[in-house]
């Protein structure tokens, strides 16, 4: 980077063991005036202890209400290169599998139309193009679609469905996360590009309870692979772990959250009726233990970060769903959206909506029967009335 821009505060971020984004920005600053001004504005922000970005609300591409996040500098005269600095979300391939050619394609498009800065990947799951001007949005979009790429979601729409690597690289996958992600992305194109909800709706798919997409904490709807039958055991492989003098007691048996594992001689015994599918034993003894054969997914609803209400984990709505086809999933999603559309408030996520109206009303609304797995905690409300149930029994 040329010497005329001094960034003593940003320079501090280059020190230490970890790679710094500042180093990357500096390497591009001579090629892209936009990046140089970005460094300048950032340095000023650090010095003044305040941000200088303004949120844009209208910029986008024709027909789409999502995929572009408008950003403007509050100091356009001082840093004209970043007077517009819009972000574009590019819909990522399922499981984030790219070929080198595909990545080069994206890099070339962004070098031509934007700052060249990328976020691979953003927390939404999308590949994020960072920084361009309003006049370059449509040309960027045309260049992307010409190569069969598309924008992802933003605003009050279905956010880009996101999944783990699934059966492509993981033996624990209980369903084909890649196929479902692809299916939902194509089936819900309108919902993805044309904001029509009360607020955002995120779907994340993990192939097993390890939950590599953090669906339980980061998605309005988590689709997490699970099995119904027993953990598969290879006793010969387990005996090899014993022979290797691995601390099975300390590393596996004592750490089972429900205490359902015991060891007799060189054999492992698992009380599967008490297994809560935490995955610890399978992760620790991958040669001896595998997920069961009767596989499907558990559906959770309601996780979110703290915005209107506090942060929420997702809670189980369907303990097990067969995933051999996706028709039931479409039907479930449609029923949830229909209900949320009807009863949700502005900027209210589905989890907040359920908290407000009550789980019983929600279940009745979408036509789901209550099951014990939905219970999050012992009830703390003593005023539960059973009259209507007694009446139904008497009538029967």
């Amino acid at each position: 980077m040329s010497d005329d821009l001094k960034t003593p505060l940003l320079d501090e971020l280059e020190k230490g063991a970890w790679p710094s984004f500042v180093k990357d920005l500096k390497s591009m600053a001579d090629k892209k005036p936009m990046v140089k001004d970005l460094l300048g504005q950032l340095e000023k922000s650090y010095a003044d202890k305040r941000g200088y970005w303004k949120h844009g609300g209208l910029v986008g591409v024709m027909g789409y209400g999502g995929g572009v996040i408008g950003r403007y500098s509050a100091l356009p005269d001082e840093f004209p290169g970043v007077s517009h600095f819009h972000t574009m979300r590019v819909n990522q391939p399922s499981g984030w599998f790219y070929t080198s050619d595909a990545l080069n394609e994206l890099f070339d498009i962004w070098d031509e139309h934007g700052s060249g800065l990328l976020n691979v990947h953003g927390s939404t799951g999308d590949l994020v193009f960072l920084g361009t001007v309003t006049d370059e949005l449509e040309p960027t979009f045309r260049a992307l679609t010409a190569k069969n790429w598309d924008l992802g979601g933003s605003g009050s729409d279905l956010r880009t469905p996101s999944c783990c690597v699934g059966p492509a690289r993981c033996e624990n996958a209980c369903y084909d996360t890649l196929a479902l992600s692809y299916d939902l992305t194509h089936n819900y194109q309108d919902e993805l590009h044309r904001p029509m909800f009360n607020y955002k709706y995120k779907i994340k798919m993990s192939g097993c309870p390890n939950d590599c997409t953090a669906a339980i904490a980061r998605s309005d709807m988590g689709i997490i692979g699970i099995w119904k039958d027993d953990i598969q055991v290879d006793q010969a492989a387990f005996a090899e772990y014993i022979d290797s003098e691995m601390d099975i007691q300390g590393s596996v048996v004592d750490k089972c959250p429900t205490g359902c594992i015991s060891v007799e001689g060189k054999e492992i015994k698992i009380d599967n009726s008490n297994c809560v599918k935490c995955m610890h034993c399978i992760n620790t003894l991958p040669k001896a233990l595998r997920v069961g054969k009767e596989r499907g997914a558990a559906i959770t609803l309601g996780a979110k970060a703290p915005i209107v209400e506090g942060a929420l984990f997702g809670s189980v709505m369907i303990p097990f769903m067969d995933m051999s086809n996706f028709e039931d999933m479409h039907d479930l999603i449609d029923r949830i959206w229909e209900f949320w559309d009807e009863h949700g408030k502005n900027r209210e996520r589905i989890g907040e909506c359920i908290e407000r109206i009550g789980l019983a009303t929600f279940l009745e609304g979408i036509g789901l029967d209550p099951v014990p797995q939905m219970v999050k905690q012992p009830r703390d409300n003593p005023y539960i009335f059973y009259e209507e149930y007694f009446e139904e029994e008497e009538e029967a």
Partner: protein
Amino acid sequence: MAGISIEQIADDMYQLVAESAGQKKLKSTDLTKAMTSKYGDQVSKQDCKAAIKLLIDSGRCVYGYFGGSSIELPHKEASAN
């Protein structure tokens, strides 16, 4: 479904958006509820979705975002100044 065309719904929606410009940001669901309230079961949610699509694709309205997404008349936003 008796006789309310997608174009008619789109025109009604446009009028609502124009009347509320600068006062209230209308969401897709606001427009849909207004139309079902006005026309009852003569319009479906699918009709309303199609009407919104028509408004957006024709450029008469644009999507905006301020906390949540809304449907607005095209204008230059203040942040861009």
